[in-house]
């Protein structure tokens, strides 16, 4: 099969910057994401793994064009053959591309959650929404709740339901499992697998590398606003030798199940885990080298 035909999402050299003013009213721009590239094929689950607060969510927001007003972005995003911009995304989001946001704060506080799950499709998908709620063990009464009435786990399940009511080809899920108990989290991940098996694509943004190893086909290791390496999940299951970048290798070896091991810096003798990571290398930030 032609690989071009098969691609669902391509992100090319994406950079996202924020303008702000310091105390002397000088304008400065910080770039939480710089030159990030990832791609996703049909039938795949791509996990983007990085520590929290590192800016992974911004990638999802950039695809959906919901970045805050003071954000600038550079680079190209393609969905199938369409280049995404502020016009083309309007036609696609909520229909072909759905986004499962990270928290209940993304819901409208003055609207019943049942209606919000139906979204722009409205009553046409009412029965799908009811099915989704049943699937996630949410009582019928929850439809009429407002977001503030939901507990953490309920909110998560409501957010997951938004992906089930459309026939979207691309699902972007931002931290979909915290707050769920184990069986429900496994259930949700099975749903993603099922969607991928139907030929759709799932981007799973998470800080939990174990979760990614369990479910994803490919794992993109995110560090300091860049993807340092995208590797097939199988390389995270064997002994880690297939991983190319020293940062992904170090990450693999530092997992509790793989020995909890950290390299010591030859210069300062510590393993302080503060690193400068570039395309090929990672160096201790002790400043002596």
């Amino acid at each position: 099969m032609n690989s071009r035909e098969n691609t669902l999402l391509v992100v090319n050299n994406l950079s996202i910057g924020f303008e702000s003013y310091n105390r002397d009213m000088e304008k400065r721009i910080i770039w939480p994401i710089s030159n990030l590239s990832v791609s996703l094929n049909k039938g795949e689950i791509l996990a983007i793994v990085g520590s929290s607060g590192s800016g992974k969510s911004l990638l999802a927001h950039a695809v959906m064009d919901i970045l805050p007003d003071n954000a600038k972005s550079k680079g190209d995003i393609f969905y199938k053959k369409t280049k995404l911009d502020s016009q083309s995304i309007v036609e696609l989001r909520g229909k072909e591309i759905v986004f499962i946001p990270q928290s209940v704060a993304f819901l409208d506080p003055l609207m019943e959650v049942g209606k919000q799950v139906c979204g722009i499709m409205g009553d046409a998908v009412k029965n799908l929404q009811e099915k989704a709620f049943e699937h996630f063990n949410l009582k019928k009464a929850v439809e009429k709740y407002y977001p503030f009435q939901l507990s953490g786990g309920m909110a998560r399940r409501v957010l997951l339901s938004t992906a089930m009511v459309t026939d979207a080809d691309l699902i972007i899920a931002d931290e979909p499992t915290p707050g769920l108990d184990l069986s429900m989290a496994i259930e949700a991940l099975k749903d993603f697998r099922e969607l991928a098996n139907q030929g759709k694509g799932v981007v799973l943004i998470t800080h939990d590398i174990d979760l990614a190893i369990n479910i994803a086909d490919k794992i993109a290791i995110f560090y300091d606003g860049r993807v340092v390496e995208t590797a097939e999940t199988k390389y995270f299951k064997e002994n880690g030798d297939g991983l190319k970048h020293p940062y992904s290798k170090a990450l693999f070896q530092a997992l509790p199940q793989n020995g909890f091991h950290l390299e010591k810096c030859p210069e300062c003798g510590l393993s302080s885990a503060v690193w400068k990571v570039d395309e090929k290398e990672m160096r201790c930030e002790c400043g002596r080298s």
Partner: protein
Amino acid sequence: MAVLEVKNVSFRYGNGPWILKDVSMEVEQGERVVILGPSGYGKSTLAKIIAGYLEPLSGKVLWNNHDLPQNCFCPIQLIYQHPEKALNPRWKMKKSLFEAGEPSEEVLRQIGIQEKWYDRWPNELSGGELQRFCVARVLKPETRLLIADEMTTMLDALNQAHIWNFILEYAEKHGMSIIAITHNKFLAEKLATRIISIPDINHIEANQDDL
């Protein structure tokens, strides 16, 4: 001998459902107890009760056979999952670090806190860097029991291994006891001298709807 005794503790918020019912456990000097279990079983509430932030509705928490001492540096210290919420956003890092007196040089060096970070605001450091400050702030000679409530859940594996390797070494050297709360069974196996599964000691019926 047990330094910490939790005796038949029950708790609920207001008139809500019972979060903890008849929970009992003990921790011995130098022991590393991991409390393992899914969310919704009151792990964090139990941590707050042991650390003295919440009063149990019934039952007792005893430290060396006495109530937890007030009006002094508390021998039981708690570290939370989200360091950014445990630090005052309007204080520079140095002020937070020195909040309860001067931290030890050895701790600062080994946990890898750089002096150039002192002048920064909390939002200018990563989660892993912030969590080091939270750890260094509470590791005083008076601290005899450290409760780590999902301390490294939000961090990457490198920071997790770094912070835990340091704390394990420190605890060994100073005879400090640890209660670690986690849902990660691999981490639990790595840390614990004893693992307690929370559903075994908390006699509530976890209500799936309320999770």
